[in-house]
């Protein structure tokens, strides 16, 4: 039977980094809490019969959020053979709280004293021997990011699993608490495994509801338990949970004073950087400047240079003529040549043309994440979001969503407040993900070639949509309430590890390429078929004029819906709907429709074709805004369904996003056309002004949640 090793520890202490090192995996690593929301398993590189499980980070075994429950249930129910407890050496006091709980569980525990490189860099010293003796388990110094000590910990863990030696906690509570615990132990003796007796008694003393439910004590047992707990609470004048917490911290405080020697010094380098980067007035302009540079370099400048080569040289001069020539040489029929060259290569090539821009964007985002800056952004945004009823916790899923909406939606599990969680799920995909980058690059390049801030503006427009949604939704009965508290530890700044950055960039980019080779490939084939064939009196036939095609017929039915947004033609309508499959498909569809094998955002043919679809530049902007903020792709919709756990809420979320996108597109097209492109004032502008007024009403109206909440109480009083 395989040996099971669990990696447990506080959020952001390096578990996933160590997991990747031990198993050779390439799991996503981030330096903010909530990156790991599901347990992940892999086999130890050196022992294939050893399964290592990376658990979501927890601060204690009294979980509050969904992902914390995953960790506690795993440790309790799955019986790992050894627990490797990762303790962040640079923040040892807080991390040891969980350690004191883990050592009580009757499992073999080994401590990986991680981030020892930072401890040493700070000039601090930790007496590992003394720490080990006091905690009752072995302590090994590690630096997961540098790969030092991880293997040693794993080898020791395997040995411990083979010998089966259990860890006994090195700490005890005060005499009255120990007496109370003994009393509870006698109550449940025989009903729980002997090695877990102490842990269960402590949890019962703390009145842990889940443990109470699980043990199903009879009425006498419950009465006796309540007597013991209440008696001590009265004696110590505190609630039971606080008594245990206080005594744990007393033990930890004493231990840290004995084992840790901190170098007395002023501000660290990270502190000095933070004084500027998180400054009340400078934080936002710096964030705006950073994101402007990232999007400008990846979409407008360097990305375009590399993408030009991909389109012009790789696709236009190499692949397309080679495939076309070969098909002709082997005598393939004209329709097949059209399907492959115009349909498949045109569509998939249009999407793949953006791969260089994608890689450059992901490269910069990975650097920003890895060096510790993005964790600061969550902190900065918390300050702003809080004013609008949201918290920085909601911004973490949005940070993740800049890569892909699916993990972003999953990351909402860290939000314990159900209302806030639902609202974050509904708004997180407003942030442009990697798949939306081709749409941004195409419209920005084709319609606004001289406006360098257009691409970065889409990112900030996403944040703007989140903020206004937050304000509007928080003023409804469904979402009213105080925002969740947001506590996060800011990691120290460090130079990004090249391997991690490149791996992160590659994993995200690879998914984009695979999607182009599968979903987009099939979608382009279907689009080409529908665009090339029509129904006539003699049945299905290949059309000369694509306006007579099946696609034109289908698009013609949908197009009127988008007429108020300025793109009421069947081509743009079909592209928008095809984006539901995958957002890249919007560009892929244009590639097929225009029959261009060598399209890309800077290809002259596409650049001249795309603007013709829109009445004005405001209509093109409305098209981009609608496609960036409407219902996400099917994969993200699936993730919303899983996380909402309700079809009703899923439909509500999709409906909300689509309505907001439509309204925004409508306002931009109608008012933008009138103000900047000479469109005359009419009913459209009047309706757009009504929409603006409705949005302002939603934003500015006063709302008192207590007014609604009080009603039932009054009714109850009358009853």
């Amino acid at each position, binding site marked *: 039977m*395989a040996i099971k090793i669990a990696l447990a520890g506080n959020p952001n202490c390096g578990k996933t980094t160590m*997991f*990747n090192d031990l*198993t*050779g*995996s*390439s*799991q*996503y690593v981030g330096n903010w809490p909530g990156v*790991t*929301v*599901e*347990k*992940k*398993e*892999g*086999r130890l590189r050196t022992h294939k019969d050893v*399964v290592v499980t990376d658990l979501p980070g927890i601060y204690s075994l009294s979980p509050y959020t969904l992902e914390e429950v995953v960790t506690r249930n795993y440790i309790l129910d799955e019986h790992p053979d050894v627990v490797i407890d990762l303790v962040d050496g640079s923040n040892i006091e807080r991390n040891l709280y969980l350690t004191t709980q883990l050592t009580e569980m009757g499992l073999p525990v080994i401590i990986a004293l991680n981030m020892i490189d930072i401890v040493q860099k700070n000039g601090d010293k930790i007496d590992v021997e003394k720490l080990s003796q006091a905690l009752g388990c072995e302590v090994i110094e590690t630096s997961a990011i540098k790969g030092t000590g991880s293997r040693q910990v794993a080898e020791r863990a395997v040995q411990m699993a083979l010998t089966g030696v259990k860890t006994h906690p090195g700490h005890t509570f005060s005499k009255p608490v120990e007496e109370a615990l003994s009393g509870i132990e006698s109550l449940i003796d025989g009903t729980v495994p002997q090695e877990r007796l102490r842990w269960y008694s402590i949890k019962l003393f703390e009145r842990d509801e889940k443990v109470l439910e699980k043990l199903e004590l009879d009425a006498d047992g419950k009465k006796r338990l309540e007597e013991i707990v209440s008696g001590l609470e009265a004696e110590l004048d505190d609630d039971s949970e606080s008594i245990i917490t206080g005594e744990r911290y007393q033990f930890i405080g004493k231990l840290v004073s004995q084992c840790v020697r901190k170098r007395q010094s002023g501000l660290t380098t990270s502190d000095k950087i933070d004084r500027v980067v998180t400054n009340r007035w400078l934080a936002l302009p710096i964030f705006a400047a950073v994101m402007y540079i990232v999007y400008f370099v990846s979409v407008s400048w360097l990305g375009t240079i590399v993408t030009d080569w991909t389109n012009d040289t790789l696709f236009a001069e190499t692949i397309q003529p080679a495939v076309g020539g070969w*098909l002709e040489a*082997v*005598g*393939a*029929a004209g329709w*097949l040549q059209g*399907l*492959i060259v115009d349909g*498949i290569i045109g569509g998939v090539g249009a999407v793949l043309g953006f791969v260089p821009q994608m890689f450059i964007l992901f490269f910069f985002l990975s650097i920003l994440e890895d060096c510790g800056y993005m964790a600061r952004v969550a902190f900065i945004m918390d300050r702003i979001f809080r004013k609008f009823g949201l918290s920085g916790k909601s911004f973490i899923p949005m940070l993740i969503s800049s*890569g*892909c909406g*699916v*993990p972003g939606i*999953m990351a909402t599990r860290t939000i314990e407040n159900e209302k806030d969680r639902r609202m974050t799920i509904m708004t997180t995909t407003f942030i442009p993900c990697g798949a939306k980058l081709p749409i941004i690059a195409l419209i920005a390049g084709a319609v606004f070639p001289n406006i360098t801030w257009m691409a970065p503006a889409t990112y900030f427009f996403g944040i703007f949509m989140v903020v206004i949604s937050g304000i509007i939704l928080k003023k409804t009965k469904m979402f009213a309430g105080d925002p969740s508290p947001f506590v996060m530890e800011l990691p120290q700044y460090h130079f990004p590890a090249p391997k991690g950055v490149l791996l*992160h960039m590659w*994993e*995200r980019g*690879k*998914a*984009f*390429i*695979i*999607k182009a*080779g*599968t*979903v987009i*490939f*099939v979608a382009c*084939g279907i689009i080409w078929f529908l665009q090339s064939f029509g129904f006539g009196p003699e049945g299905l036939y290949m059309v000369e004029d694509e306006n007579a095609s099946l696609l034109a017929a289908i698009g013609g039915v949908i197009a009127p819906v988008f007429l108020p947004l300025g793109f009421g033609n069947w081509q743009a309508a079909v592209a928008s709907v095809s984006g539901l499959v*995958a957002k890249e498909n919007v560009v892929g569809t244009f590639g097929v429709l225009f029959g261009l094998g060598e399209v890309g955002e800077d290809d002259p043919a596409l650049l001249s074709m795309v603007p013709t679809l829109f009445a004005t530049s405001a209509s093109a902007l409305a098209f981009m805004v609608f496609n960036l903020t409407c219902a996400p792709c*099917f*994969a993200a919709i*699936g*993730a919303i369904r*899983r996380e909402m756990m309700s079809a009703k809420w899923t439909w509500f979320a999709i409906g909300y996003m689509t309505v907001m996108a439509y309204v925004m597109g409508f306002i931009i097209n109608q008012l933008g056309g009138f103000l900047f492109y000479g469109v005359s004032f009419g009913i459209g502008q009047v309706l757009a002004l009504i929409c603006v007024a409705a949005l302002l009403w939603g934003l500015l109206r006063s709302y008192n949640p207590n007014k609604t909440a009080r009603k039932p109480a009054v009714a109850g009083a009358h009853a």
Partner: protein
Amino acid sequence: MVTWIIFGLLLLAMFFAVRYAFRKAKRGECVGCPGGKSGGCCHCQRQMDTK
């Protein structure tokens, strides 16, 4: 004949692409997710199948 052979191969490739995407969707994974091969997905964080 050549046309139908190439077309057949293309349809086969499309079939496998659809099957791949469908299986991924069924497991709640992103398209492009490495699945169990390298210990789970960096992307959608699915658990590796250890059976």
